[in-house]
């Protein structure tokens, strides 16, 4: 049914040429190759495997891993609705349903004419301006019925994306509160000049004095990471900026890259100066590919200004440049060792640590992986000194933190606070009322109930990568947890059994409860699964996967218990309905042809 002419090899040759025939560029090559036909036909994979001298299975393994790469036809228009809980709260299901009906297709299936497919995807980082979607990788926010009607018409007319109204693709920063970082108006190169003046050792000492900790959530001391990489043997050293902002509810890195890209790239260059690195990567999540042209432009300008390339700011021996590497829809690549695997053109499977990336990272070389916000913050330290930075925030959490606020509040968006701000203060500032719970740190973070709103955002109390999702009294926290459980089951990389099977089983139990088949025994099994996932998983994805369930079972247990139909055990399916087909085939309706779904007399 989909007999298409084979991809012209000349086009593939051009892509291979552009990427220097390097197997480490496999993911980038596949992303580019997919743009030719909207999917990756088998002959294309074979051709690329031969050209790169890679096993065919390796190429197919990579193509099959990333959810934005298609090994089957997916249509000329590939529509993916963002399916974070915040999108759901804004009514994405109804909009997706409406678009499917207008285009006469079922979710997840290609239309018969091969024109369009519609499906759901994990959070696309537009939680403050949802519901959101991606069309052929391009982000569109603020969906409503009117916009959906227009999009249906554009697709029916087969209008190329370039001719769609440009306001669809407009994405707001929504910066609501500025502090040290967002108020910084720095001339590109100023921080770098200051750090170079201090010398490499002096700059590293300044970083040590700052007590800067990683903003990706784990909070590892940045200076320790840098000096470990600096002291590790192996050349050339590598700086990676982790912009694979996949944690549901987080979108601060998108804003930093959109409006403060110079700070981010300057931060990477500052890291290179401290570490002695010469190669840099920005790992940009596929959902943010709309930022790619402007980021490339910033890089080109910085090269022209002597802030990247050979002899940066005329400093002998300071050579450093940055390449942008696109992701393709895999949450697990936010984990630093999975990210490095992906950078090397492989499936994003987390590595066994140790060795840590600082000694053995990209291609076995010493590699620093820092969050976007962490790197931007280093500009502040270079300009104002480490001690000034350390003087803000709390004892163990120096500086400020960007929060990505979404959900039930009047003004969702980006808020920058000094560390130590209370949950209650944040809720007041963003205009939240009747708040029932706040999910801090995304799906893998912590769910805070009303009695905890005096707690503070800081590594010593509530650590976070920045997500702050608000749920008011009308929301059902069981459904919130269930959506996160579905997210983890979808994003599990499949490498280790506890996570691959455990997240699927947990999803099964949550669905069983949602379908009205829950029993007390299921809560005990959920507890057991939570412990198994926490203790036996290979990486942080699996061990964080039960967090939403653990928290809500503890703090919102009635939301689970009210769904139970029995205190003992219930099947997940209707036993009498399971006999229906046999009844029909035999034309029987006697008492023996029926089963009671709830057994009488069981305790």
């Amino acid at each position: 049914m989909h007999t298409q002419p084979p991809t012209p090899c000349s086009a593939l040759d051009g892509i291979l040429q552009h990427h220097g025939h390097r197997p480490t560029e496999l993911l980038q090559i596949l992303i580019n190759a997919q743009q030719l036909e909207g999917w990756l036909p088998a002959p294309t994979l074979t051709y690329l495997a031969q050209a790169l001298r890679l096993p065919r299975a390796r190429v197919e393994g990579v193509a099959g891993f990333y959810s934005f790469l298609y090994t089957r036809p997916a249509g000329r228009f590939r529509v993916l609705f963002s399916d974070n809980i915040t999108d759901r709260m804004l009514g994405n299901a109804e909009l997706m349903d409406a678009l499917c009906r207008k285009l006469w297709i079922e979710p997840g299936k290609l239309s018969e004419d091969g024109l369009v497919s519609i499906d759901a995807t994990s959070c696309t980082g537009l939680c403050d301006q949802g519901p959101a979607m991606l069309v052929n990788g391009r982000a569109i926010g603020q969906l409503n019925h009117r916009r959906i009607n227009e999009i249906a018409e554009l697709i029916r007319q087969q209008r190329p994306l370039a001719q769609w109204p440009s306001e669809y693709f407009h994405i707001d920063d929504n910066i609501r509160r500025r502090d040290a970082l967002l108020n910084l108006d720095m001339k590109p190169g100023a921080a770098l000049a200051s750090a170079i003046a201090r010398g490499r050792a002096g700059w590293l000492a300044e970083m040590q004095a700052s007590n800067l900790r990683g903003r990706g959530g784990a909070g590892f001391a940045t200076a320790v990471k840098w000096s470990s990489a600096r002291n590790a043997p192996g050349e050339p050293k590598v700086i990676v900026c982790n912009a694979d902002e996949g944690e549901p509810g987080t979108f601060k890195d998108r804003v930093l890259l959109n409006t403060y890209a110079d700070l981010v790239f300057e931060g990477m260059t500052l890291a290179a100066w401290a570490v002695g690195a010469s190669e840099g990567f920005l790992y940009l999540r596929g959902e943010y590919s709309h930022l790619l042209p402007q980021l490339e432009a910033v890089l080109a300008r910085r090269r022209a200004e002597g802030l990247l390339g050979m002899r940066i700011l005329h400093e002998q021996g300071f050579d450093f440049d940055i390449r942008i590497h696109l992701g393709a829809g895999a949450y697990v690549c936010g984990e630093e060792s999975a990210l490095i695997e992906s950078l090397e053109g492989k499936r994003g499977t987390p590595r066994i640590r140790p060795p840590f990336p600082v000694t053995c990272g990209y291609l076995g070389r010493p590699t620093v992986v820092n969050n976007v916000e962490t790197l931007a913050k280093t500009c502040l330290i270079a300009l104002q000194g480490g001690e000034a930075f350390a003087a803000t925030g709390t004892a163990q959490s120096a500086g400020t933190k960007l929060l990505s606020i979404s959900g039930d509040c009047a003004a969702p968006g980006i808020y920058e606070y000094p560390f130590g701000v209370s949950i209650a203060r944040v809720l007041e500032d963003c205009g939240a009322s009747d708040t029932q719970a706040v999910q801090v740190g995304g799906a893998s973070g912590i769910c805070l109930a009303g009695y905890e709103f005096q707690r503070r955002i800081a590594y010593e109390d509530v650590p976070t990568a920045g997500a702050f999702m608000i749920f008011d009294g009308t929301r059902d926290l069981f459904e919130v947890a269930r959506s996160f459980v579905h997210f983890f089951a979808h994003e599990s990389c499949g490498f280790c059994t506890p996570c691959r099977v455990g997240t699927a089983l947990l999803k099964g139990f949550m669905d069983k409860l949602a379908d009205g088949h829950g029993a007390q025994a299921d809560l005990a099994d959920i507890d057991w699964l939570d412990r198994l996932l926490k203790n036996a998983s290979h990486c942080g994805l699996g061990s964080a996967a039960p967090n939403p369930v653990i928290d809500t079972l503890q703090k919102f247990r009635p939301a689970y218990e009210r769904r139970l139909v029995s205190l003992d055990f219930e099947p997940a399916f209707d036993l009498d309905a399971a006999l229906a087909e046999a009844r029909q085939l035999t034309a029987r309706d006697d008492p023996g042809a029926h089963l009671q779904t709830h057994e009488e007399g069981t305790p």
Partner: protein
Amino acid sequence: MSAPARKLRVATTSLAGCFGCHMSFLDIDEHLFELVELIEFDRSPLTDIKEVGPCDIGLIEGGVCNAENVHVLRAFRRNCKTLIALGACAVNGGLPAQRNHLPLSECLREVYQFRPGIANGQIPNDPELPLPLDKVRPIHEVVRIDYFLPGCPPSGPAIWKFLTDLIAGRTPRLTGGLLHYD
């Protein structure tokens, strides 16, 4: 082994199974003499008791393929303090569950109507016969199960180890060669 004060009462049955697990149970050979010192049998192919009564331990072989299986399994659950899924079919549905990817109607029509040599065949509808479920289910999907003993079948030594653990009050734990799924 520290024997309990009284003999434990044990029931066994096979639902959608092949009695292979029961045959494997007999493979404990001379341990059977030790076993009958510690337990007495309730409903089991060994006693020919038809209805299960109050028991300490129930061993279920086979998955759940029809309405009668459901009744028997529920009766075991009501009567047994500890209920054990014995063997691959009880644990996962096993061989009989291979029909799960086919519609039940196709299975029955193929056997009773379309098989070569059958004329005017019809699907049996005698009320004496239990109706098949649309899918074969592992027993833990129908009632709560306390322990799982995998294997097709679990070996005699595995069953012996499992039962003696249970009788002595140790949480049964199979390791090494005793634990296998095929």
